[in-house]
């Protein structure tokens, strides 16, 4: 049976805020290998910084699941960047190897939702795929 033109793939992830807080306090100097400068700057301005870091880490995992890649290849955690539009709505910008994989898999758009409460941060990502495209993910 031929595949339909439009396909969606879903990824979700949940991260304990305490776990990311411990990582951040013990390896502060290495956080730039996990989060982009813009993500770190955004979170550092928040009163509950670790909640926002945890939500971003969950988002990276959720997006990787939705795109369908794991910890393989030359992937960097910073290849998945959580951004916000003017209204504050979260979105995704892909870079490097993950952007290349997304292109190959025909991912045309990714919708993202974040939430944190009671010491947990959660993210859900929906990758909307069409035919493989040349879309330039990186801004």
């Amino acid at each position, binding site marked *: 049976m031929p595949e339909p033109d439009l396909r969606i793939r879903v990824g979700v992830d949940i*991260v304990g805020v305490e*776990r*990311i807080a*411990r*990582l951040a306090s*013990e*390896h502060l100097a*290495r956080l730039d*290998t*996990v989060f982009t400068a813009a993500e770190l700057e955004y979170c550092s301005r928040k009163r509950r910084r670790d909640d926002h870091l945890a939500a971003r*880490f969950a988002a990276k*995992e959720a997006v990787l699941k939705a795109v369908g890649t*794991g*910890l*393989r*290849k*030359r*992937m*960097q*955690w910073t290849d998945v960047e959580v951004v916000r539009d003017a209204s504050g709505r979260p979105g995704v910008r892909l870079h490097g*190897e993950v952007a290349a994989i997304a292109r190959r898999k025909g991912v045309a758009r990714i919708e993202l939702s974040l939430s944190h409460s009671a010491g947990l941060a959660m993210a859900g990502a929906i990758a909307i795929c069409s035919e493989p495209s040349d879309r330039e993910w990186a801004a």
Partner: protein
Amino acid sequence: MSTTDVHKAVQEAVVGALGVSEDEASPDATLMDDLGAESIDLLDILFRIERSTGVKIAASDLGDYIQGGIPDDRFSDDNGIISAEGLEHLKTVMPQLDEGASLEAEHVIQHFTVQNLGDMVAQRAAAGAGA
């Protein structure tokens, strides 16, 4: 740093990051299946190893090490099962794997042990020292 010291440092990193005992972090324990490590824990382990040994390893390096530079389409077949070429390479980096096993490429990292990680770090340390 000797190979023994590297393996000791790797075990200490696993113990510190996962909060398990030294007995639990035995050489043949798999990081993900046996010890329950998630990706954030792997990051913690690798950061700790870097701090104690100076060997820098990215999380994605684990996959590269396991696959050994073999392209995806040769490492596994269309169903994602590891090929004969892939299994031949795996014998060198994960010798504990059952030769006759039908392994999915996507899940092979779940069989990665504390010993495998120690071997990888020791190899990187030796390569760095020789550079």
